[in-house]
């Protein structure tokens, strides 16, 4: 082969090699690969039959709560049906050291798990109109639920909006055992002069068992609670 033919051949080969590369552009590698490869959907879609919050009257969850270093022994009891503005839900009493400390009214339909109202020791009944959806069925990991409505307290209306999200499925270790739980993040904004007030809450609910862990603002202070014992039907 003469130099005149050899040189262009080599040049073309060089450019081809250069432009085509030699394999995969982005390697799949690394000690932290699990952060990039784990499935975004941790299981099947959630349905009401999964009973993530069993609301049978008499169900009890014993929990330990921690708020700014202070520990307290709490108990959640499903009392029974209660009607709020024509909508019937299940009343849960939250006892702290044996005394009624908070009340929450939940409702489960074929399409939603809802919070109808809540009340703590320092306030009147805080009612959500329409009911605040915690989860919409069928629910998949990462699904958002948004809500716009009114927050009614002592017959005073406040415009409000909120979001709820099925953030994922986690193994939760508690004194009562290790649970496979659904993590639901909820945030509620109540509009008032001076800016909206935030009410964040995180619920870890285990199918067939209900509350295994909770995180919420206790009068503005971060609070955390986990189940120590339960009796659920």
């Amino acid at each position: 082969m003469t130099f005149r033919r050899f040189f262009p051949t080599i040049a073309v080969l060089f450019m081809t090699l250069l432009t085509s590369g030699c394999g995969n552009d982005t390697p799949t590698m690394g000690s932290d690969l699990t952060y990039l490869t784990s499935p975004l959907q941790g299981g099947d879609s959630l349905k009401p039959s999964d009973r993530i919050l069993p609301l049978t009257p008499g169900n009890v969850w014993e929990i330990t709560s921690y708020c700014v270093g202070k520990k307290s022994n709490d108990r959640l009891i499903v009392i029974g049906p209660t009607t709020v503005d024509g909508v019937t839900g299940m009343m849960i009493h939250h006892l702290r050291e044996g005394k009624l400390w908070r009340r929450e009214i939940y409702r489960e339909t074929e399409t939603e798990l809802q919070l109808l109202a809540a009340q703590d020791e320092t306030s009147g009944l805080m009612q959500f109109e329409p009911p605040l959806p915690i989860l919409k069925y069928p629910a998949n990991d990462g699904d958002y639920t948004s809500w716009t409505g009114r927050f009614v307290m002592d017959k005073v209306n406040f415009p409000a909006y909120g979001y709820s999200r099925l953030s994922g499925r986690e193994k939760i270790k508690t004194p009562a055992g290790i649970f496979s739980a659904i993590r639901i993040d909820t945030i509620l904004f109540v509009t008032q002069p001076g800016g909206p007030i935030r009410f964040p809450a995180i619920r870890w609910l285990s199918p067939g068992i209900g509350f295994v862990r909770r995180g919420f603002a206790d009068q503005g202070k971060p609070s955390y609670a986990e189940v120590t014992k339960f009796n659920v039907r």
Partner: protein
Amino acid sequence: MAMGILEPEVTLPAPSPLRPFLILGGILGVTATLVFFIGFRLSQRGNWLPDTPERLGVWQMTEKPLTRQALQQLGNPDARGRTYENPFEEKVDVHVISTTDYQSYLDPQFTMGAYEYTVTAEKALPIFGTNSPVRALIFKSGKDQRRYLMYYWIQNQDGSTNIRDTLKRDRDFAPRLLLGLGATFSGTQNCIVRVFTPLSPADINGAQARRNLNEVCIGLHDFWIKGKKP
């Protein structure tokens, strides 16, 4: 020769002593023209710097310009720095960087190395479809062991993405040549996009961080390409 036939002798004219210089001058001239043309095409291709929307679904945008140091690393390109925040106070940072210069293409692995971050995982993820991947990278801080998830890609105005054009080092000859050739032969304008978020210790497998980046990246891609308001 064997037959005894004599060929007439041909006398070639003596080569000019300037010939090698003329050839060299020609090569230099062609190279200079090519370099100028490639540079011109590259800067032309990098003139696209799309804006980002005020809202992407539940995500609210605020301005967060790139630091002077970060811009200097990339050759001081035009760039947009934004932070998107969702109602749960989770934040995603977005950098959109123009590609008018080779230095803009510096690999994030190289640029983040200056801040003591190392890449601990890397994978191509086809979040905009099989032909439009992004590079997903996990960065770990050498200072406080915090981890960040970053999606990095070159966004072409025609909607396609590219994760190949990148300079691993400041003086990376072969990728520079490829970039130049690509810019010369392709008229599609592009920009570099870096989207990143910290990995919360509570986010055990990083699934929520990936979902957050996916939401923001798909929202941006739709906004730029389809003009779709999220």
